[in-house]
């Protein structure tokens, strides 16, 4: 078994709202064990939750037969989280504005970008969306 496999955790959650909390708490547990501060653990919880929500609602269109794959990989410099769906719809990346639009949704990617140290989104329709997030040890 390679070192990376030893230090990675895979979680498959149903595409049903509420299950994002399973991935969120798993990521928080790993981050706490790695020594991240409580503030950073909170940032990670929200980022993972939002990435999973996007995957559930958009990528898998709430189809309970589709799963969201979450992979947590412990690295010497930090924690990498990959969230993948089946790409039924591209995940929204725009930024809404409080007090302006009548539809107040769509803050997920904005929050992720502001809470983790690295974000990368790869999307291919009907193949999949993949969100890669990294929080680094020692960053505030």
């Amino acid at each position: 078994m390679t070192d990376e496999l030893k230090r990675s955790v895979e979680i498959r959650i149903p595409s049903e709202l509420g299950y994002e909390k399973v991935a969120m708490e798993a990521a928080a547990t790993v981050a706490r064990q790695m020594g991240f501060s409580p503030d950073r653990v909170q940032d990670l919880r929200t980022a993972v939750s939002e990435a999973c929500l996007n995957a559930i609602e958009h990528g898998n269109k709430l189809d309970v037969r589709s799963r969201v794959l979450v992979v947590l990989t412990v690295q010497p410099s930090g924690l990498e989280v990959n969230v993948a769906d089946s790409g039924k719809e591209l995940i929204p990346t725009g930024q809404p504005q409080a007090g302006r639009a009548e539809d107040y949704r769509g803050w997920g990617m904005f929050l992720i970008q502001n809470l983790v140290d690295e974000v990368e989104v790869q999307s291919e329709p009907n193949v999949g969306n993949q969100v890669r997030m990294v929080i680094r040890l020692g960053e505030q």
Partner: protein
Amino acid sequence: MPDKLELSVRRQSGLPIIQFSGDVTTFAEDVVQNAYRDVAREGGRNVGLDFGSCNYINSAGIAAIIGMVTEARRQSRRVLVFGLSPHYQKIFRMVGLADYVEMCATEDEALLRVTPPEA
């Protein structure tokens, strides 16, 4: 796997306070709007939002709160927020909600802000 959210309305020194207990998520939108409209029907100029018993707010929950705050602003009603953890205070600032509500450290501070000074 629906999230559990209970909202109740209480009054403290004349300030109607909507108490959030549980998770504020996608399932919150109607509950939040109904609670606000119950308070608005009473016609007061202020409303307090107590998040002290709330552990999880996601972007859909934030959207529900933005909707409520937008309606309150249209009706020239002040919204005072307290009980938020430091993380969610940061989130409220991040999405701009803190520009539209009065962020208070405690319920006492919210009450002080809406209590007219004694003559």
